[in-house]
């Protein structure tokens, strides 16, 4: 199982159902694709994430009907600073795909997926709590793990391991 270099060419990766579906729907919403370590990553343009998820969910050939996970990676001091990461699973076809949205530190806002999957609720609250990403259209965007009156967002890279004080 030696490592092979990642494939980043859209044309080569069109065999994957998620890539095929999204490129056929709106090729300009797909910023970049990457196939690395047997896992498919698709960078989706920030304004299209919710619609892209609807497209994948309603794909008749391979419906990505299950939202496994939502999380975030802080690449401070790079800009765009945040990658919001979604892991989708197709229960009928047993396929996974990872969607990513890049966000600037000046306006870390992205559409909420709660209208598509109500289960996104807790995951997005957690990302809001620990990274300070805001999800527009979320029904109850409040802190979930940290106390309500906590200052700062602990999983950001500029948040010290020892805390602020």
């Amino acid at each position, binding site marked *: 199982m*030696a490592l092979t270099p990642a494939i980043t060419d859209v044309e080569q990766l069109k065999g994957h159902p998620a890539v095929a579906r999204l490129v056929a729907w709106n090729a300009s919403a797909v910023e970049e694709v990457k196939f690395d*370590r047997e*896992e498919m990553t698709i960078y989706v343009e920030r304004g299209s994430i919710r619609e892209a998820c609807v497209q994948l969910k309603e794909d008749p050939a391979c419906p990505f009907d299950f939202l496994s*996970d939502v999380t975030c*990676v802080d690449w401070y001091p790079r800009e765009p600073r945040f990658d919001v*990461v979604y892991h989708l699973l197709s229960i009928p076809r*047993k396929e996974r795909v*990872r969607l990513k949205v890049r966000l600037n530190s000046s306006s870390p806002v992205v559409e909420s997926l709660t209208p598509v999957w109500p289960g996104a609720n807790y*995951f997005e609250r957690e990302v809001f709590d620990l990274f300070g990403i805001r999800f527009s259209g979320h029904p109850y965007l409040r802190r979930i793990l940290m106390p309500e009156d906590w200052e700062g967002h*602990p999983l950001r890279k500029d948040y010290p391991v020892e805390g602020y004080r």
Partner: protein
Amino acid sequence: MNPTPVLEPAQDRTMILNMGPQHPSTHGVLRVLLEIDGETVVRLMPDIGFLHTGIEKTCEAKFYQQVVPLTDRIDYLCPMTNNLCYVLAVEKLLGLEIPPKAQWLRVLLNELTRINSHLVWLGTHALDIGAMTVFLYCFREREEVLKLFEAVSGQRMMTSYFRVGGVALEPPLGFFDRVRDFAGYFPEKVDEYENLLTGNPIWMMRTKGVARMTAEDAIALGATGPTLRGSGVDIDLRRDMPYSSYEKFQFKVPVSQEGDVFARYMCRVQELRESIGIVRQALDGMPEGPIKADAPHVVLPDREKMKTQMESLIYHFKIITEGFQVPAGEVYQAVESPRGEMGYYIVSDGTAKPYRVHMRSACFANLQTLAKMCEGRLLADVVAAIGSIDIVLGEIDR
């Protein structure tokens, strides 16, 4: 801003009831806010975070091998499953090949872990509903499993037995005989639990038709594991997306259609029987060979070699002091934990410490189904519903 979430009653006739965080049926520190109209639950809101320890942040400051003991602590009922998920993710990042014996040992111990976790669930769930005896019986058998863990890893609960590249040590002499002995008598014990519960009229009244959830709701809310299979969705990552040689084992995936507390109970009890079947297969087919991958820059050398060979000593020193570097990239590895899909998302930037470790915990998503199960139902059924989701707060809060 208010320091804790507050529910306001929507109507004059309803009132707010606070349950937990020290309520005995909340299995730890879950707080549930309930709006009730008489005995009927109108709204339900879980409040979590009491056990938040920032493990994901801590991981970023540790070497890859130092994260393994942290993974035990997020879910203290199935440490081996978390160990496995983490080491599989790091091995995928490294592109390491794991020898068959280590893979089979991992399967064997994972199924024992599943039995351990399900026994605690069954005992406490029955205790919540009022069946005291089952609790004592379950903990009697769990004690045996913990002794097996102690024999193999030196620890009863926080095992940390798996390593990146294999397992820590050869199992002690006679270990497999003890496991075989346990596997021999355990099915009878499951019959014993079932005799006490499955046909018991009180148990059936408290569980059948209670806290129903449809398959569509379960999928939409992100439920996994027995919570999802109890609603009739046939998915088990061990069978459908196999890892660590699970494709070489034969087992059935129990699915129930009703979607109530009883259906989830039946799923887990049958899983106990299937797990012991996998344990037997692992014992019968245990391959010979090394228990660690041939990767000296990642796997610590044997004690004996370290004391006699210069090169091994150097590798040992380097791994301990500088860790091992992992090629840049990212992976998401999911395993079927006793509670559902346990996933590790690890991002590496090419150094010896993970850039980001995210744990997708099954209970965190499963807990969202609680409101769906309980709203419009009786207050007393909330206890049964919480038990049937099988929550572990350490994993939810991380």
